[in-house]
């Protein structure tokens, strides 16, 4: 990595670290401390030695840790009960007047609001997920980190359909949902069948309600035709999961799967390499989490690293962030797409 990038990166991190110091101290010396830190960075960049950056980082961290603690305790010790009272009153005032007055808001209020909005947004409105497997390859790639819109398909009873944009799940939508066999996992697939639809596959092609679908979003990587996978639900595989067996036993009529009320039939776009409704049955409508909103970061990494972060993966990301990030996929919006009819 070029030295200039490293210096800039270090300085940016240090700017954040400065917020650990008491406000008065930061206001008085923050700018100069940044200058000094940058000068030391450049000094380090000019020095020889392979471990110089590590030594520099450790030394800076030690300096930061010891002095933040020191400055904080000094500030606390110098405060009288009246100061505490004044500080609490000031905080209450800034929070109270935040957003109403035109004066610049206090830093505390601003960060507080940011935090509240962030927590609300990340838990209620959107949620971040990563795609660990290739079942949607062609549309979503392994290592796509994306935000899921949790409002889009939310139950309108809870939210009030008039209040927020809401619609029901439709055929062709990409949905994120709790994997029915293990609700701790979240899967992303495309909706192929909604309640009442009759579904079967013939030579890899979906036939829905008697109509052959032309699905531009799918990809096929295997030239071979597998009896069950590609001519579903013919030649039932009894090794499927309990829910998959239930589907094959109770919801097949005349060689077609009929989607029961309150359920969804979902398939991966990478049709030949996708564990989907063919194998583990229907997705209950209530298990749908939301709709993929956009890919905010796409990073080329193996599946195991994406499923749980390890120290090795952190180091890998730090070392290859710029080269392995798929920049062209950043801020990509996965769209629902309707299947055409094959004549």
């Amino acid at each position: 990595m070029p030295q200039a990038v490293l210096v800039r990166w270090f300085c940016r991190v240090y700017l954040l670290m400065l917020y650990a110091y008491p406000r008065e101290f930061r206001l008085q010396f923050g700018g100069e401390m940044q200058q000094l830190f940058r000068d030391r960075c450049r000094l380090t960049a000019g020095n020889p030695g392979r471990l110089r950056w590590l030594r520099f980082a450790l030394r800076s961290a030690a300096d930061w840790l010891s002095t933040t603690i020191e400055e904080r305790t000094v500030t606390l010790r110098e405060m009288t009960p009246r100061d505490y009272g004044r500080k609490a009153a000031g905080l209450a005032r800034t929070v109270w007047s935040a957003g109403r007055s035109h004066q610049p808001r206090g830093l505390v209020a601003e960060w507080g609001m940011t935090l509240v909005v962030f927590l609300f947004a990340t838990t209620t409105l959107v949620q971040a997920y990563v795609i660990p497997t290739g079942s949607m390859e062609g549309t979503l790639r392994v290592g796509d980190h994306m935000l899921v819109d949790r409002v889009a398909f939310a139950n309108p009873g809870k939210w009030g359909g008039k209040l927020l944009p809401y619609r029901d799940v439709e055929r062709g939508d990409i949905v994120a949902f709790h994997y029915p066999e293990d609700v701790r996992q979240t899967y992303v697939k495309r909706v192929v069948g909604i309640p009442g639809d009759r579904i079967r596959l013939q030579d890899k092609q979906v036939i829905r309600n008697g109509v052959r679908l032309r699905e531009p979003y799918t990809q096929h990587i295997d030239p071979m035709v597998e009896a069950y996978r590609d001519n579903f639900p013919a030649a039932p595989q009894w090794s499927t999961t309990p829910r998959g067996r239930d589907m094959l036993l109770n919801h097949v009529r005349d060689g077609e799967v009929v989607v029961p009320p309150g359920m969804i039939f979902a398939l991966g776009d990478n049709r030949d390499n996708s564990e989907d409704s063919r194998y583990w049955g229907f997705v209950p409508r209530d298990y749908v989490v939301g709709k993929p909103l956009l890919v905010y970061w796409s990073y080329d990494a193996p599946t195991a690293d994406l499923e749980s972060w390890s120290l090795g993966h952190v180091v890998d990301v730090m070392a290859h962030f710029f080269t392995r990030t798929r920049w062209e996929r950043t801020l990509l919006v996965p769209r629902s797409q309707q299947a055409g009819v094959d004549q």
Partner: protein
Amino acid sequence: MKKPSAPQELLPLTAPVFHILLALTGEERHGYGIMQDVARQTNDGLQLGPGTLYGCLKRMLAAGMVEESEERPDPALDDERRRYYRMTPLGRRVVRAEAQRLANAVTAAKARRLFDWPETEEA
């Protein structure tokens, strides 16, 4: 913090404070200049990080040992304006008192022939 009138009340100084005062003895310097000079004084034994340096300067300003000078660019560095610091008369008295205290300690050590022993001797 109330300002002590006698330098003796401020002794002994911590190592960073003492070396910062030494760095400011000849001329006024900015933060990076102080850091470089302290490293020179101690043969790179004492590398002041930003937190340590400005924590010390804050207390030294409060005690009246140093004062802020003007802000101006350093011709040797980039064009950025930097805040310079200079020593006050009190600071000069304090660093002299501390140096005297250390000199007395060194004299006492010499009187006990501490430096006559070979340095490599280990018990």
